[in-house]
């Protein structure tokens, strides 16, 4: 494991808005930033931008910077106009950006002020999704961490909290599995602002995503305790993730096996369909989302792929302990990035499959390398048993395609 510094080709945390706003259905995300921020979200959201999305940018202009306009008054004006237009909004996130952080606009005070003004209809919170502080999925971490102090106090009974935005279909599958195991499970974030789960000394939480360092710390400050586990990717990862919770809540082994067996069998069957395409393939991961280590573990242990290099923007050694344990000995894990140096290593290694962002994918394809663009792994349901085959297919498809094309 080593750290690298230099040019980084990664998204900033604002990008998390694109999937978070779909998860919390009555929340609105207002970025306070520049035209660049608005342009980024537009580019990342693609066509989604037109379906009356629940996010927008308050663009800082020269009048704000020159002090001609009072920025707090301006922000209040923009928010008032927004809430008038969208009376269905219950939770408003003021999202900090690089410009707002650099000029030290105090969004936490603004959130407090606006919360008082808009109570009880709308609660206003703030977090930073700036590129200087957050990389891609860390935006979700910052958002969820801002929710934690607001969560109601749990009554004290032992409850499981599953943390990390999951696709609704995946969340429903996990809810059914936990119910069958006899574990009372709640999910953070909830789908609606007023149904957020409670937290307290009796709460045990299980991370569903590897990028939730600050959220975990905030939960621990409220007395909750983390259940150490690998992440629920692939048949094995899902089983061990569920088992960690089952062991904590003292579920009997035979009950655990009875509940998980049918889904586990289906997952293995779905994976088998892709194992031939992926077995022995040499894979290179560029850093993007912090999902790289668990994904590499899945590809290596369950699909038989070989790992050349696993890049990650940030490595939380505690949360990823079980995952790192599972990586084949000697796998180079690189935290951070020096883009041109990493591209040199990739070109020299000529991997069979390169997992990277959309800025690199086509240029590498043009050099004859097969790529899998990584952002899709955030927008597609990939966790749990029923999605294990889909996850394998995401990696197998580009290889399949390259084999099919004759021109």
């Amino acid at each position, binding site marked *: 494991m080593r750290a690298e510094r230099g040019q980084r080709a990664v998204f900033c945390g604002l990008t998390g808005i694109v999937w978070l706003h779909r998860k919390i259905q009555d929340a609105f995300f207002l970025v306070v930033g520049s035209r660049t921020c608005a342009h980024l979200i537009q580019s990342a959201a693609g066509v989604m931008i037109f379906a009356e999305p629940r996010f927008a940018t308050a663009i800082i202009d*020269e009048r704000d910077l020159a002090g001609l306009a009072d920025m707090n008054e301006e922000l209040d004006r923009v928010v008032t106009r927004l809430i008038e237009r*969208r009376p269905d909004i219950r939770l408003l996130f003021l999202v900090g950006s690089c410009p707002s952080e650099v000029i030290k606009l105090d969004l936490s005070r603004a959130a407090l002020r606006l919360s008082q003004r808009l109570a009880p209809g709308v609660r206003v919170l703030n977090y930073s999704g700036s590129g200087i502080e957050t990389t891609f999925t860390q935006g979700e971490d910052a958002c969820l961490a801002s929710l934690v102090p607001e969560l109601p106090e749990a009554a004290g009974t032992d409850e499981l909290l599953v943390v990390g935005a999951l696709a609704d279909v995946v969340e429903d599958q996990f809810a059914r599995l936990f119910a069958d195991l006899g574990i009372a499970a709640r999910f953070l974030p909830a789908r609606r602002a007023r149904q957020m789960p409670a937290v307290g000394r009796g709460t045990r939480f299980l991370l569903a995503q590897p990028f939730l360092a600050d959220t975990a710390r905030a939960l621990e400050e409220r007395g909750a305790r983390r259940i150490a586990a690998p992440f629920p990717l692939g048949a094995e990862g899902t089983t061990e993730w569920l088992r960690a919770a089952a062991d904590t809540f003292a579920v009997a082994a035979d009950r655990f096996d009875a509940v998980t067996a049918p889904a586990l069998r289906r997952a293995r069957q779905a994976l088998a369909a892709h194992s031939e395409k992926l077995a022995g393939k040499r894979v290179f991961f560029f850093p993007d989302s912090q999902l790289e280590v668990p994904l590499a573990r899945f590809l290596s242990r369950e699909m038989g792929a070989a790992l050349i290099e696993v890049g990650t923007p940030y490595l939380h050694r505690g949360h990823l302990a079980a995952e790192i344990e599972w990586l084949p000995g000697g796998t180079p894990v690189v935290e951070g990035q020096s883009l041109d140096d990493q591209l040199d290593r990739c070109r020299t290694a000529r991997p069979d499959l390169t997992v990277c962002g959309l800025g690199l994918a086509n240029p590498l394809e043009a050099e004859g390398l097969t790529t899998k663009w990584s952002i899709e792994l955030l927008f597609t349901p990939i966790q749990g048993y029923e999605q294990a085959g889909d996850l394998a297919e995401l990696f197998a498809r580009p290889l399949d395609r390259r084999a099919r094309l004759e021109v």
Partner: protein
Amino acid sequence: MQLTVWTYEGPPHIGAMRVATAMEGLHYVLHAPQGDTYADLLFTMIERRAQRPPVTYTTFQAQDLGRDTAAIFKDAVAAAYARFRPQAMIVGASCTAELIQDDPGGLAKALDLPIPVIPLELPAYQKKENWGASETFYRLVRALSGSPTERSPREGRRPSCNILGPTALGFRHRDDLIEVRKILDALGIAVNVVAPLGASPADLGRLGAADFNVVLYPEVARAAAQYLEKTFRQPFTDEVPIGVGATTRFVEAVAALAGVDPAPVLADAPSRLPWYSRSVDSTYLTGKRVFVFGDATHALAIARVATRELGFRLVGLGTYTREFAREVRAEAALHGIEATITDDYLDVEAAIQAAAPELVLGTQMERHVAKRLGIPCAVISAPIHVQDFPARHSPQMGFEGANVLFDTLVHPLMMGLEEHLLGMFREDPEFHDGAAPSHLGRTPSRIADAVERAPNHPPLASAPVPSLHVQGADAVRTAPWAPDAEKELRKIPFFVRGKARANTERFARERQLPLITLETLYDAKAHFGR
């Protein structure tokens, strides 16, 4: 502060990237925080470029702010020079780096590189993408075109010109260039340098050798052409050859500048548009209500094609390019309408609803607005999505461009014969309102409903945003329709029914009629005519 969901233009450094990416042998070092590399994917995905843009970002993070971001910048410039060995570099700051006030120009100069390093001042909180492209190109031309030299006498050699304006991520720039080269070639005019697209810094040093300049996209290249006019005494034309008339004027202007005869190029009906437009099937295009919005160059050109070459009626014209607002206002005034000059898509949406057009010609954004309102639409300007960087040859400019425009502007509409049959046999099972037109992939009943409702109601009940703009329309109550009048209204072909309903209701409102009867319907028809 401005509340924004959609932006027509990116920040100015994106414009600089469009120029840098268009060129060869030029490298851009951008002082920018981590995350600003998102811009790469505009080029690699939307335009499907096979190389990364020639841009190095410093991607500083919060932990660097306490230390020396200036040192990070200098290291990035030195490393980029060592790795890429460009002929020249441009350096500048993105919006956040502008706030931390390192001086990219001064820092790069201190490195004393053996190549020209051109600093860019792109005020990110004032200006936008097109301005950034124009300023960058102007700075490059200023720095690299050298000092005035004597051109060889015109006698005994071909006249020559530069083509200025095409960039990366430009709407149809690739194919426009092919068409314009074809015309210049046919006129016997040599092309000296095309820039920025495909030009190297060394090529910019040869700009002065040409006799004159051809500006294809004034938003990007007019400033540079004005500089070249002053410095090298090169006249320029910025007649934009979009449409048959404009292309003809372009050929005449270029021929005049070159001192050659335009007649051979203009002979023999070089475009099919005039005949297609005169053929009887196109009679049904007469007076079709069209709304045009885009960058100023395309909005103006397409408005002229739509009205003068296809016989549409212009009911709306606008641009997000404030720099060219005056020209767009003047063109709109010729049609008795007021131009929509805005970069807020909600204003554009409101203007489209108010104008109730039968065809919308705009950007990617208007495509979505039109889809929501159920109005046919074609894309004629950036910003655009990946499908508007087509694999096939699809110019807007020149005579082939006019052919492409005829198809593009007419296809979303009902073909004449089909429209006629629908009107004549509307009670027949094959041609009733619910039967889909053979070439449109959507259900006409939805179109009919949407067009009918559009003037009075927001398109989505759950979306309060657009409703802000139409509250005036609901202020006065409209009289109810008598059943027989309603029934008669259903007999009017669905594509004009919305207009008929709106006109009748307006007629009734103005006369404060308590009920809309059969009489009212036909009185209104006589009053408004068509």
